[in-house]
């Protein structure tokens, strides 16, 4: 879109003064203005932080040809909509919306401004200039489950979850399946805090799980180190998503299922500049260099590390999916038949837990 507009400007350069085109229009075309809008503070760790790192990579690549504006702590709803509109009015033509709740406003904006390209986190709507993106965290949490089962003495694992949406449900299911691949007797309890950012209730939830005897805890989609710190204090292993929180749990940090958005952001911006941006769902995993695992705890036995690495390799080359049948759901009924592997659509809309997750899903 930008490309066509730019060539249009070039071809009518002589007439431009007559048309009284404002001068800043040229300046804006030379520098790409990118806005990143996130719902929580872009602190030193967590989801918003990894998105910010992705835009930092853009700045590193394009230098002064790009200007990134970070808008943090933006409430979803009318405020978010207004701020999106304002960024476009200010000349930003590439938007990264860092939360599901920005979907409806972002979609409206995309339709009104075909020259703007928008990336939208964890949604399900697509438009020609509006692409939803997400990470296949479940690939990493499966490996974490294996490590957790090998370290757990109580055979009870816990998870503090933000919202019971498919993205988080799949992470918990894969975590459980990974653990059961090592020890079939493993059980997982879940506490939903219904917030992306609420350090106090996250910590409460972690303590509740620990008091039930869980000795490995999964901090699922928290943007704060509250769960991680609480587990370190109580001597329970803990891991989280997006960015490493090892400094908050130097002894008991199990590892991180990290995300690196730089490759996807770079490719999308390049497409936008080339005028080939096409709205499409991007659900990125290990093979896309998006999801990775790191900072493994040294307490994991060497033979376990070898087993994890072997599975890691099959996840990387796509020869293995955690959601391969036979899988049984919480009620004991067959959810996936033997030999069947769930497709992306089924995983993206998952609203059931596998057997071994003891907490029922909120209905």
């Amino acid at each position, binding site marked *: 879109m930008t490309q066509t507009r730019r060539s249009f400007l070039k071809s009518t350069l002589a007439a431009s003064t007559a048309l009284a085109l404002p001068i800043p229009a040229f300046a804006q075309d030379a520098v790409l203005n990118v806005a990143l809008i996130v719902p929580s503070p872009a602190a030193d760790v967590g989801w918003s932080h990894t998105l910010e790192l992705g835009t930092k990579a853009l700045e590193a690549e394009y230098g002064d040809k790009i200007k990134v504006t970070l808008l943090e702590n933006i409430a979803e*709803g*009318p405020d978010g909509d*207004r701020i999106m509109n*304002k960024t476009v009015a200010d000349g930003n033509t590439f938007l990264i919306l860092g939360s599901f*709740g920005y979907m*409806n406003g972002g979609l409206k904006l995309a339709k009104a401004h075909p020259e703007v390209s928008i990336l939208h986190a964890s949604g399900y709507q697509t438009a020609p200039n509006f692409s939803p993106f997400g990470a296949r965290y479940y690939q990493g949490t499966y490996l974490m489950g294996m490590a957790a089962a090998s370290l757990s003495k109580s055979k009870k694992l816990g998870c503090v979850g933000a919202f019971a949406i498919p993205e988080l*449900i799949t992470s918990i299911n894969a975590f459980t399946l990974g653990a059961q691949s090592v020890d079939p007797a493993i059980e997982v309890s879940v506490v939903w805090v219904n917030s992306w950012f609420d350090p106090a209730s996250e910590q409460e939830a972690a303590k509740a799980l620990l008091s039930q005897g869980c000795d490995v805890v999964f901090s699922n989609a928290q943007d704060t180190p509250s769960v991680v710190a609480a587990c370190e204090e109580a001597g329970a292993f803990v891991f989280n998503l997006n960015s490493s929180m090892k400094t908050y749990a130097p002894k008991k940090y199990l590892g991180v299922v990290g995300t690196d958005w730089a490759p996807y952001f770079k490719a999308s911006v390049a497409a936008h500049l080339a005028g080939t941006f096409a709205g499409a769902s991007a659900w990125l995993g290990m093979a896309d260099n998006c999801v990775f695992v790191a900072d493994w705890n040294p307490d994991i036995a060497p033979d376990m590390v070898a087993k994890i690495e072997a599975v890691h390799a099959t996840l990387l080359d796509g020869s293995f999916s955690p959601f391969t049948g036979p899988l049984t759901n919480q009620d004991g009924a067959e959810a996936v038949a033997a030999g069947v592997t769930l497709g992306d659509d089924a995983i993206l809309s998952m609203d059931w837990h596998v057997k071994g997750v003891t907490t029922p899903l909120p209905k």
Partner: protein
Amino acid sequence: MKISFIRRERASRTAMLVAPVAAFACAIVASVVLFTLLGKAPGQALYSLLLEPFLTWYNFSEVLLKMAPLLLIAQGLAIGFRANVFNIGAEGQLIIGAIAASALPVWYPQGDSAFMLPAMLLMGAGAGMAWAGIAALFRTRFNANEILVTLMLSLIAAQVLNYLLLGPWKDPHGFNFPQSVMFPDAALLPILLPGTRVNISLLFALIASVLASILMRHRFAGFQLLVGGLAPRAARYAGFSEARAIWVSLLLGGLAAGLAGAAEVAGPLGQLQRSVSTGYGYSAIIVAYLGGLNPWGIVISAFVMSVIYIGGDNAMVSADLPIAAVWVFQGLLLCFYLAGLTFIRHRVSFIRKAKP
């Protein structure tokens, strides 16, 4: 030596007018220092904070959009605050109002009846009233403090919202995301100013302001309320009821907040979702007090607060200010104004300790 604040018999009118201006000047000076220390251009920051909301029609319309719920709720709350009935839970009443109003479009997502919208508004206002009524009942029957009860009811309201959005009212095609279906057109408020998001809820707020001023200034009922709250015993001798002051205050506050909630889901949101309010119920408390609990003062303070909110958002986008700096500016403004008010209403006296 002891410093004490003694309430003035009569606050100076000039000082009342000078105070906001002085507070404003102090806040600007302090924030220029702050922005400069942060390495941001203070001129650009102040421009987008204070001027930009007025410079384009779009920005100004957004100020009005923000103002509607703040003004409506603050007018409702001020009735109670004047009578010393402290409804701190307007946020919860707003949420319950939004939920009740959403029931119709959630159950009839294809509805196109002309009665849908009026029914939604009535349900929202009624539910807000009922929610606040719980606190009134507890206060009058069991003498439970309404500050605590309304505040805790807000937490319950938020959980009711979570329950509905994660369960029965979840959009069946929404992949389990916590939000309702998008409302049909028949469930949306008409736009007041074409080309903007400002809907007729702004009129509700202005009508509420007129009604509040009539109630408090010209009617015996307003006087009864005031006395009932301020001096319950005196009110009883005069035959006014304290219980009545409590009921009326809380019900009207709940009505306003519930209606504001209904107007949010039927207005800019167009669906029921988690962030149905960005703290309007709490901000309205500040608005009510900044406006001196006077119905027309509240109109001004609601407008000023909205300008600061919209300006703050602008400053983040255009002047690259971090959100914390925006909040500091907003906090500075309030602090200086409240400090100014203290000096207007009280005089400082230095009392030397009497020698033993």
